[in-house]
């Protein structure tokens, strides 16, 4: 963990959400009643329950045709799919997500002045605590074993317009990798742009682990209509070995790639706004 200290750090990052999640082979016995009983394990800290559409299984593979966004999925449904349940704190910052083949743990920035509680101090330990509760429940009820096939780390940033940039066509002020849009051979004013990048994560021996996905999309804040860019960085890939250690090893690696990439693709002007340390 000592190497984590060398990562770029920002006093006031534009993060609004971090999600750590694990996808595993479907547990057919984890039905609605079992999900309800599982909530009892979390109810004290997460008293609010919501039902949502389940997330689909997504597996990062190499050697297959590169699929442009949006990815196309297939479902063969015998019955209506079981929901994904959210167990949320009263304040809403912390969230556990569970479905028959997925477990997720989110931190969300709900109020403007809330500080990001940091990966090592809160995000990672929070995931470990709640994953252990989930794993123990599955084991005690004989619903398992849990066989993880993918883990993911997602950081969502809202880059709000301000002194450095005011309009969606000023991508170059935010993203140092952006050098298009102002080509004089196009006699038109660029209005906005969105882009997506994918990077392959491999070991030094060229063993494929997964991918880093970066997407940038223009949007507006609901409360004041300010232009923003939503910068989402997701690392998804296979657990690096058995059990929780393998999951956390991938998450630590993914988080490292996300933080390094965030620093690399954004400009020094924005780093000043976010008070890079």
């Amino acid at each position: 963990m000592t190497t984590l200290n060398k990562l770029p750090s920002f006093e006031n990052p534009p993060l609004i959400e971090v999600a750590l999640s694990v996808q595993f082979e479907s547990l057919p016995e984890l039905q609605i009643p079992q999900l309800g009983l599982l909530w009892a394990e979390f109810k004290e800290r997460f008293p609010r329950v919501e039902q949502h559409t389940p997330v689909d299984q997504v597996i990062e593979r190499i050697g297959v045709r590169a699929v442009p966004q949006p990815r196309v999925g297939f479902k063969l449904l015998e019955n209506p799919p079981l929901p994904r349940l959210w167990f949320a704190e009263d304040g809403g910052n912390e969230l556990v997500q569970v479905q028959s083949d997925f477990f997720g743990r989110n931190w969300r920035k709900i109020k403007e002045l809330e500080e990001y509680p940091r990966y090592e101090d809160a995000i990672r330990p929070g995931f470990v605590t709640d994953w252990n509760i989930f794993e123990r429940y599955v084991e005690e009820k004989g619903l398992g074993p849990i066989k993880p096939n993918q883990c993911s780390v997602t950081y969502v940033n809202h880059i709000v317009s301000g002194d450095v940039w005011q309009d969606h066509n000023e991508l170059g002020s935010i993203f140092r990798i952006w050098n298009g849009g102002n080509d004089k051979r196009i006699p038109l004013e660029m209005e906005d742009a969105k882009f997506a990048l994918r990077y392959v994560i491999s070991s030094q021996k060229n063993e494929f682990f997964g991918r880093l996905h970066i997407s940038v999309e223009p949007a507006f804040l609901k409360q004041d209509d300010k232009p923003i860019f939503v910068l989402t960085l997701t690392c998804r890939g296979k657990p690096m070995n058995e059990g929780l250690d393998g999951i956390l090893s991938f998450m630590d690696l993914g988080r490292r790639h996300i933080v390094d990439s965030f620093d690399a693709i954004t400009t020094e002007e924005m780093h000043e706004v976010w008070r890079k340390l």
Partner: protein
Amino acid sequence: MSAGNLAYAPQFGPVTDDVSGFSSCRLRERDDTSVAAVGETLTYNNDFKWLPPIVSRLKDILQLNADWDSYGAHPVRPESAETVLDLLYNLMSSDTPIPAIIPTPEGHVQIEWHTKGIDLEVEIESPALFHVSYEDSISNNEWEGDLQYDMTRLATFIRELTNR
């Protein structure tokens, strides 16, 4: 499992891999944001002519009850069938021969090609574990083993039987 209960798709559309806990509630999309009609494009695209017979076959084998072989076979797991479609979508081209789809007693699905001197069998043991057997009687190449996340070898085999 009765045929009447089988609300099979395939449903085409963007994969729902959004794990966010916000559901975009804080944002107003630009007015011109739209979602492409991916389903219609795929359904009528000649590149995917393999899809209807494969889906039809998957639909049939998903209706098999437990003990369908009288030797205690398990019913086919839906995620195995979905993985077949996912894999073929990412590896087949319009010229690739349409494979046979075979249920296994373990509840898995096996994809098989026996054509042009090549025997290629891919057993979907889970969404992230495929057992592959390849024999080429013309070049005398053969290979057998498990694949998890790296499909390079399988893509090469399928390319060979497509181009021969």
